[in-house]
């Protein structure tokens, strides 16, 4: 989905603040929220990590930007546990003593087509173009490379197709590729001698003509 999470290249953001000797967790609740996601995925097996990513992407955009990382984390976990019927939103709000904002409902996912062969379709050095599509569900092709031409730097192993897995649909595996784009091909005013390498699954790519 063309959501607020897809931040690459977006303008208007200021300085990056680096905290010296930053602790892993700043508050005790962050560690609990972190562990609750492991519970949901590995113990309860209520959802997978792709669904978790998509649940965070579905947050209200204003909430997404205002929330800390672990607030987004908690919101994703709670959303999925409510959607899967493990807990009720009313119970959460009663226990919390106030509103518990959750993410918006998911649009339909897409299963796509499994490749005919386990062999990679593209090879190192091949010129490829990222398909210009805008799925309403989960996808991992960032907006800033769609329609852009790049060159394959490395062929990665086969992984689950995220656009299906992100919706709990049966997902096939396909190869991923590290595709290199000159920064100036993405943003005309980007400085020279810079490239961006994006990890893209085979379904996101077509051969450049």
């Amino acid at each position, binding site marked *: 989905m063309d959501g607020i999470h897809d931040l*690459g290249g977006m303008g208007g953001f200021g300085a990056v603040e680096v905290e010296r000797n930053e602790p892993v*967790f700043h508050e005790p609740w962050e560690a609990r929220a972190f562990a609750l996601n492991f519970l949901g995925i590995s*113990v309860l097996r209520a959802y997978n990590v792709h669904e978790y990513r998509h649940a965070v992407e579905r947050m209200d955009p204003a909430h997404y930007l205002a929330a800390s990382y672990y607030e987004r984390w908690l919101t994703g976990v709670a959303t999925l546990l409510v959607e899967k019927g493990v807990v009720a939103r009313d119970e959460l709000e009663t226990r919390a003593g106030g509103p518990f904002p959750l993410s918006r409902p998911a649009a339909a996912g897409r299963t796509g087509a499994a490749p005919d062969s386990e062999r990679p379709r593209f090879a190192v050095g091949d010129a490829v173009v990222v398909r210009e599509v805008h799925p309403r569900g989960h996808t991992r092709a*960032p907006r800033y490379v769609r329609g852009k031409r790049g060159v394959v730097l490395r062929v990665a192993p086969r992984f689950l197709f995220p656009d299906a897995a992100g919706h709990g649909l049966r997902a096939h595996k396909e190869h*991923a590729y590290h595709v290199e784009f000159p920064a100036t091909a993405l943003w005309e005013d980007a400085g020279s001698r810079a490239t961006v390498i994006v990890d893209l699954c085979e379904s996101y790519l077509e051969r450049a003509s």
Partner: protein
Amino acid sequence: MSDPRHPVTPASVAERTRALEEALTAKGLVPDGYLDDTASRTKQELNPENGARVVARAWTDAAYRERLLADGTAASVELGFKAPNSEYLVVLENTPAVHNVIVCTQCSCTAWSVIGLPPDWYKSPEYRARIVREPRTLLAEMGLALPEDVAVRVWDTSGETRYMVLPLRPAGTEGWGEEQLAAIVTREALIGVARVDVPRS
């Protein structure tokens, strides 16, 4: 937030976390000690000291360096470092001519096995938005000014590959042992927003 049924301020995030934990516990879904164990094991086992040890080994053992660049997953497992999210680790070698830097523009994926959980700055919208578009400017703001003749490669962790930067070994560390070297490798250097420097003492 804009749900018309909930116009008032949300419960605090600490209260919401407690509410979710209590609701699950009341249903008998949380094994005893599970949440504490998971959080403390994560802190202990997944941290940037692992990556620092990998780097120190690569700086002192040419055969290990070669294995690391050829197969980052196997070479880090060789030193005992693995994590559920780091099935396929690719190590990016900095050279005097090429500087590598890592981001995850769509969430905040990191190689937990060697870098640990990502720091706040890495997860910030500012870093995720800007590093792909203006890497030199942002790196300079963060204290790493790169000469114009050094090429920058920005790696967006948009799939299941996880990355770690193998920084340049700083001058003045000739003859240092692995432990001494590992002690100067920071998380920021493993991500590519800092050089490894010899501390002035």
